[in-house]
Each structure stands twice: as structure tokens, then as C-alpha cells.
């Protein structure tokens, strides 16, 4: 089996327009959640989110591109440009055919859907722009990345709700590990912060009106975010031969299905996935120093996740750190695992554990070290990133220092 390393990373999210701004915000425990700015916001019961603000697509894309790029595709391309520039790869010849793209997202072009439904239903028009379909399709982002960078290997999109990005990165990992490709561009994006996107989430009655406070006894729900993060996964010998800077190694992955409930999480399913990922990574559970939690801030997720971690790690659960950065950037749904992997590379590269902010009251059902409110300096060797999706689909990645 080949080894897989990360040689580039890029992002845009509520915390920043690149990795260094995002890392800085995570170090400072800054909150990117604020009042939503969108049409008809006064008709929403939930009016906060982790929105990307001060972003003007016209400064980075031309008119023709904007006609084809939904916001989730724009976020993806900006992140991919940053990641690929850092990796310093030029995709020509054999490398082009040996490089693919696997990205996660849940909603596809939700803004495009929302705007065009308004056009036909609310405005009563009988005609929409000819590019609606290629703009809203879930694979648009992956396809545009492949076109912009001439990537001709395995390319597709994974859509498993809140686990989309972790599933995508797990696939990219396995594709390189098995020798099917040399390099994979992977991660995910989401842009669901439009009227219909927020309205749909309101219906479930699991959203907070004021803040995302994972693991805190007074938590009252999740807060949606938007953005993207993209990584360059590369076969280890390939990266070493060209003297690339290696940010981290991807050493394990597991995915399972609860086969139980369409929305409620399962402790057994989560624990089984965590244990499976650690086993796949061939490390001892005691080597795991940090977990980036799924940590949505809902009553159900956080207590179930803590119980699963306690189950999977036994006594060691009390020694490791676990934090939820959703408290800062919100829940990016299909893009969330990608942005959260940045907290993992931050831990491994910089020795900084991003905090769980908004933490106010201990919850006996979440009695782990959740790194409350303030980032912590700590040297960790092995880290996990959890994602547990609606539909009972679980995906956990394991990273280590090189």
C-alpha cells in the first residue's frame, strides 16, 4: 500500500479567505458567526450563520465564469487555487492523467436553485438562463477544478450530507493508497445560506437562534456555515522525490452506516467508525492526541459523540483533547469535514489545538477535555476528524505528523 501525504491546502470560510487567516482565527478563538445578510431574511426564524462576508465574485471571476459558477463552485475554485499553488504542482503529461478530483457537497448549487425557483414560481416567468443545470449540478465544482488544472484522472462528487467531505477525502486517500492515482485534489464545499436553504433547516427545529455552543450544557442547536476547503493529497514517494513540503500524512479512514434512523445519531455506529479508523491507521488508540469533533451543538449529537469517544478509547478518552470548530465557522454541511481538517493540520503542524468557543456550562454527558474557549499549545502525533451524517452515515479520518 502507498503512503498518502498532504502537500497543499486552501480555504475560504466565515473565518477567512485563506488558510493563514483561518488558522489565525482558530488560534484566537474568533467567532465567524453573525447576522445573515440575504434577501427576505426578515421572514426567517433563524437569522444567524457563518457567512462568507465581504466577498465579491466579480473581483476574482469574469462574467462568463460567474454565469457557470454557483457560489459553492466559486468557493471550491478559490480553495483549490490556494492548495495547488502551495503544493507547487504543474499538471502536464503523465501527472495530469494520474491526478483526479473527489469533492464533497450536500446541496449543490442551492443559490442557483433558489434564484431560479423564484423566477418561475414567484415572478411567474416561463424562462430561465440556459446554464441553470450545469451551474447547479453537484459535480460542477469537481468538474471545474479538473478543467482549470487539467486533471484527467478519477473525478467525482460525494454527497452524504454532513459527512460528504470526509467521505470524499477518504476516497481520495484510498485511490492514492491503492495506486490508482498519484495526486488527488480533495475536500469539499457548501453554500446553502440562501432563503430556501435556511428555511428548510428551520423546519427540523434543531437550529440555534443565538450561537453554536458544542458540548456546553446550555447548547441549543446548530448554526449553518458556508465555504470550502481543498487539499492536495499526494503519494508519499512522489512528494519526497520532488522535495515537496509535507503538511501531514493521512494514515487511516473508516466509514460505516448505522442502519437505524434518518436523523438521530448512534453511539455504536460512531464508536465503531472511530475504532475502525484507528485500526486502519495501525496506531494504538493511546497515540491519538486530538479529535476534531463532529460537535454540531445539538443536544443529541454532542452527548452521543462523547459517549462514542469514551467507548472507543476507554480510559484514554480522558487524556485526549476534543474540540468543535463549528462553534467558530458554523456547520458547513457537505463542506464541513474539509474546513475542519484545517484544525487537524493546525494541530499537527503548529502544535495549536483550536478551541470549542461559546462554551459556558459543563455538561456531565460531555465530560471530555473539549478545549473550552481558548486555544491550547500541545504537541500531538496522531489526530482524528469525525463526521456523522444524517442518514446514519459515519466517516472518520486519521492524520499524523510526518
Amino acid at each position, binding site marked *: 500500500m502507498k503512503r498518502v501525504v498532504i502537500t497543499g491546502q486552501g480555504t475560504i470560510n466565515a473565518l477567512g479567505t485563506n488558510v493563514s487567516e483561518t488558522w489565525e482565527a482558530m488560534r484566537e478563538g474568533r467567532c465567524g458567526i453573525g447576522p445573515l445578510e440575504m434577501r427576505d431574511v426578515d421572514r426567517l*426564524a433563524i437569522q444567524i450563520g457563518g457567512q462568507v462576508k465581504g466577498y465579491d465574485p466579480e473581483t476574482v471571476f469574469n462574467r462568463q465564469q460567474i454565469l457557470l459558477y454557483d457560489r459553492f463552485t466559486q468557493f471550491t475554485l478559490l480553495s483549490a487555487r490556494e492548495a495547488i499553488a502551495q503544493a507547487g504542482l504543474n499538471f502536464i503529461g503523465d501527472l495530469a492523467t494520474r491526478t483526479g478530483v473527489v469533492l464533497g457537497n450536500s446541496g449543490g448549487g442551492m443559490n442557483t436553485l433558489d434564484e431560479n425557483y423564484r423566477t418561475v414560481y414567484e415572478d411567474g416567468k416561463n424562462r430561465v438562463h440556459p446554464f441553470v443545470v450545469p451551474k447547479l449540478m453537484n459535480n460542477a465544482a469537481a468538474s471545474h477544478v479538473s478543467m482549470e488544472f487539467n486533471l484527467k484522472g478519477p473525478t467525482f462528487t460525494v454527497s452524504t450530507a454532513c459527512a460528504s467531505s470526509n467521505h470524499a477525502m477518504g476516497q481520495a486517500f484510498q485511490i492514492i493508497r491503492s495506486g490508482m492515482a498519484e495526486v488527488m485534489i480533495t475536500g469539499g464545499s457548501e453554500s446553502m445560506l440562501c432563503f430556501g436553504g435556511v428555511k428548510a433547516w428551520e*423546519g*427540523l*427545529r*434543531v*437550529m*440555534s*437562534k443565538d450561537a453554536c455552543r458544542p458540548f456546553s450544557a446550555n*447548547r*441549543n*442547536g446548530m448554526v449553518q456555515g458556508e465555504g470550502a476547503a481543498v487539499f492536495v493529497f499526494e503519494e508519499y514517494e512522489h512528494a519526497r522525490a520532488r522535495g515537496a513540503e509535507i503538511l501531514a500524512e493521512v494514515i487511516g479512514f473508516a466509514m460505516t452506516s448505522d442502519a437505524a434512523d*434518518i*436523523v*438521530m445519531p448512534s453511539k455504536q455506529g460512531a464508536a465503531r467508525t472511530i475504532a475502525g479508523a484507528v485500526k486502519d491507521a495501525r496506531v494504538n488508540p493511546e497515540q491519538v492526541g486530538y479529535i476534531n469533533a463532529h460537535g454540531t451543538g*445539538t*443536544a*443529541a449529537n454532542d452527548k452521543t459523540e462523547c459517549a462514542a469517544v469514551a467507548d472507543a478509547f476507554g480510559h484514554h478518552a480522558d487524556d485526549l483533547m476534543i474540540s468543535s470548530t463549528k462553534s467558530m465557522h458554523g456547520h458547513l454541511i457537505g463542506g464541513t469535514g474539509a474546513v475542519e481538517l484545517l484544525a487537524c493540520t493546525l494541530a499537527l503542524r503548529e502544535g495549536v489545538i483550536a478551541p470549542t468557543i461559546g462554551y459556558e456550562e459543563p455538561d456531565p454527558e460531555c465530560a471530555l477535555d473539549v478545549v473550552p474557549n481558548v486555544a491550547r499549545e500541545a504537541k500531538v502525533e496522531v489526530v482524528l476528524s469525525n463526521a456523522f451524517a444524517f442518514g446514519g452515515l459515519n466517516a472518520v479520518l486519521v492524520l499524523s505528523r510526518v
Partner: protein
Amino acid sequence: MSDDIKDKVIAIIAEQAVLEPSDVNMDATLEDLGIDSLGLVESIFAIEEAFDISVPFNANEPEKSEFDISSVESIIAAVRGLVAEQSAS
């Protein structure tokens, strides 16, 4: 009027529980009736639609919501309150 509210709420709950309205006891909890978390949010949605009211309920902190869901009787009382508020405003 008030019996109308009671009958409508019981009909909504009975439909979720797949029971006859006559089998829905006033002191039963939703759990007794076999209504899970999704059934609960669906029932609240149906109540909002039936009475044209907005029910303040967050599934993360049911005990803090002004809308008391501890029994069929309490739900009916809460709906009566909201309907009265609605017609007063």
C-alpha cells in the same frame, strides 16, 4: 370553539401515532403514543398549519420551550394559548 381546538390537536396526534382519535388519552405522553422526535416536529408543523400559528419549539431544549409537550393535555392547553394570542393581536 375550544372543543374544536381539542379535536383538531387530537386528530393530528392520532394521525402521527396511527391510532383512532378515541384511543388518544389526555394524560398520555407522546412517548406513550409511540411518537418519536421526527413525529414530534411533524406534529408541531401540522399544528402550525392547522391553526395558522407559530409554535416556539426547539428540539434541543424542549424543557425550555414555552410550548409544553409533556402530555396531550398540555399540548392542547399550549395550542389554546397560542390561538388566543393570535386572535388578540
